[in-house]
């Protein structure tokens, strides 16, 4: 013991002041930046491909169709089972995959999240019950059943499958959000905001929503992944989109047999999806970490708001200035 005091204290890393810091030492290193950049790149590649790929696709299609699952010089990533250029498919197929997966999850969270939030924020038990009971009834239905019913009933309709995926995710989102929101909504901060006459919307979205955010952010990434695979699995079963649709998920499902014959036909779209979900999740983590670590939103908000008011005052009525000072 006494030896310790005799020695000079060891040089310190970033002050392990707050408890949290001590436990998460090393966050600030360059590693963080590298990961952030990597995550952004991972995320951006598939998204940009989905957005702008269709514009470039004709270039890739210029060499015309080839033999099925061929790996010849004319097609950089070979061809798929119909002899179509895999690169062209890759360029064309992002929109529907990401669109339907994101759309389904967004819808699920929009509806389910709203229901869950409303149920949690409501101080009336009956509102909670009314909102959550139906959710609880729907919850245990195997999503597989819903997908297959919809897939069988409204065959080959991408919208229907998207809606089905949204539907199966909605109760889950509702419950998740409710559980997370309940803690916040029942706490004194929400009470204080209500006492201040804050609108329900602001209490729910501004504060309770904000407290739910970490849980949701941790969930959204996996949910999107899940949605992509549910759609892909529906195609695997012949319940989803047309097996010829130039969609990443469909392409993977349709070419799966050729994994070892023409690996690109499966691996290229799979890599896109992988980049997307990994990037999305990593970015989500980054944003959350940042949120917990940096000075609170108020600082930034205020500066932004001051700037905004200044602009407004300068532009709009000169009288407003006086009024503002009054």
């Amino acid at each position, binding site marked *: 013991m006494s030896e310790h005091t005799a020695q000079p204290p060891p040089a310190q890393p970033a002050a392990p002041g707050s408890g949290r810091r001590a436990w998460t030492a090393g966050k600030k290193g360059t590693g963080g930046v590298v990961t952030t950049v990597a995550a952004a790149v991972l995320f951006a590649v598939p998204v940009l491909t989905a957005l702008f790929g269709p514009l470039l696709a004709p270039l890739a299609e210029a060499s015309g169709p080839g033999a*099925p699952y061929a790996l010849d010089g004319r097609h950089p990533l070979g061809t798929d*089972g*119909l002899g179509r250029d895999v690169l062209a498919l890759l360029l064309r197929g992002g929109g529907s995959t990401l669109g339907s997966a994101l759309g389904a999850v967004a819808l699920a969270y929009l509806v389910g999240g709203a229901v869950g939030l409303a149920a949690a924020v409501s101080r009336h038990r009956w509102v909670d019950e009314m909102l959550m009971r139906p959710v609880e009834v729907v919850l245990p239905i195997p999503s597989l059943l819903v997908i297959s019913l919809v897939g*069988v*009933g409204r065959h080959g309709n991408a919208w229907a499958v998207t809606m089905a995926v949204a539907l199966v995710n909605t109760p889950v989102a509702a419950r998740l959000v409710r559980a997370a929101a309940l803690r916040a909504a029942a706490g004194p901060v929400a009470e204080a905001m209500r006492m201040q006459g804050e609108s329900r919307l602001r209490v729910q979205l501004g504060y309770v929503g904000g407290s739910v955010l970490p849980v949701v952010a941790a969930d959204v990434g996996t949910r999107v992944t899940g949605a992509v695979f549910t759609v892909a699995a529906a195609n695997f079963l012949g319940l989803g989109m*047309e*097996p*010829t649709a130039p969609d990443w998920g469909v392409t993977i499902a349709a070419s799966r047999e*050729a994994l070892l014959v023409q690996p690109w036909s499966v691996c290229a779209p799979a890599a896109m999806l992988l980049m997307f979900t990994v990037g999305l999740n990593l970015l989500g983590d980054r944003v959350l970490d940042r949120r917990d670590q940096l000075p609170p939103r108020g600082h930034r908000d205020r500066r932004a708001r001051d700037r905004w008011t200044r602009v407004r005052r300068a532009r709009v009525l000169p009288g407003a200035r006086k009024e503002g000072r009054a």
Partner: protein
Amino acid sequence: DGSASAGATRPRRGGVLRAAFPGAGAKETLDPHKQRQFVDIARHKAMFDKLVELGPTLRPVPRLARSWESSADSTVWRFRLREAVFHDGHRLEPEDVLYSLHRILDPHAADHLAANSLSALDLGGCRAVGKETVELRLKKPSAEFPSLLAVTGALIVRRGYRDPEKPVGTGAFRFASFQAGRSFSAHRFDDHWAGAPYLDELRILSAASEARNSAVQAGEIDYAHEMSPTFARLIEGNSRVALVSTPLSGVDGFALKTDRPPFDDPDAAMAVKLLVDRERLIEVISGNRAQPGNDLYGKGYAYYPSHLPQREQDLAQARRLARRSGLFNRRLTFYTSTVVEGFVNAAHLFADMAGEAGLRVEVVSGPPETYNTDQLTTGDIGNHRCGAMPIPTYISERLLDGSPQNASAWKHPDFDEDFVHAQGIKKETARTRAYGALQRTVRDEGGLVLWGHPDWLNAVSTTVHGVKPAPPNTDKWARFDAVWVD
């Protein structure tokens, strides 16, 4: 290529063969008269026999019936039976045959598959003639009757057979166990009329295509039924797995509805027949494992008019005909489904080809479960696929006014009359000629665009011998009596 028996060792007794077929879950059945799936048929084939089977060219060949003869008007048929024994030791007698036919045609059993084909039987007029012969009487003459006895689900069971769980047949294997959707096993029947099989045990297992793929490669099964052209490419050069490829095992094509515009005009149909690029379809859909079709069913089968010239793509003529028949002004609907792998692909490929020729084709996809029925009424164009069957059966099932599967809506009373007439012709050459004329009519005026005759692909482990190429539904297909393992 083809048979895995090439360079085989000497046949050897003993061993177990594990054969995997696409499964159908709870739908699988032990009742031989309800059979519907390939996996059922294979199982039943091991345990039961039909009176008549179909040979490689889809001609009837003797099975339990040693020989047959008919009255001059082809309404009364006599079948002489073999000296076969059932698994319980009981000897096959005409009464067993009559019992089986009665059971198949039982009015209360709606799901007996052969009932439709055998509905021509006049059961009241059927009888045993002595201990060896059974006499069957038809309601109307048919020279093709023996091949009707070879249809799916026309198996001969033991008199008094009721409980499907206790199958007793004359087949080469005795029942051991069965679990729907999973597995079936049967043991060698030493008293089989054609001599005991080599195998000690036969297991017929159900598995989806992914599982069959990997299992046969890993040596977990010895025989995998119905493999894809992609799989064939995958195992090229694989020393453990060989492909048994059966050429001419059916037909792939498109069906145009000829009972309504635009394809009620033979020119319009001909335009479509001339614009399809058969080679491209074969390359993409069949992985180059098919022979080009000539818009005729049954290439290589009995009654096939092989002298007709091969139809080739002729875009110029196709355009001319299309313009003349007003095809360019219409929007055509291609009704397809994922019911069979490759249907949707073929539909899109066709739509592309038609698009290049200036036609507008919209592909619509329907539910696979009811596709075959829906297809009869929906869309202008549909997919068409048909396994191996005798040409007259094909005509009667697909091209007559009352045919249950008349996908091209080919409804011409005179054609039907000619067909009934042809069926009654006793003399084979004349009958062949009559059938030939009928097929030619359909080829030139009908709505069937039959672009390819795909190979049937089975995979067999190299330790298995004696598996012969044979079109599905024929005698040697899925028959493991003469198969042995190292």
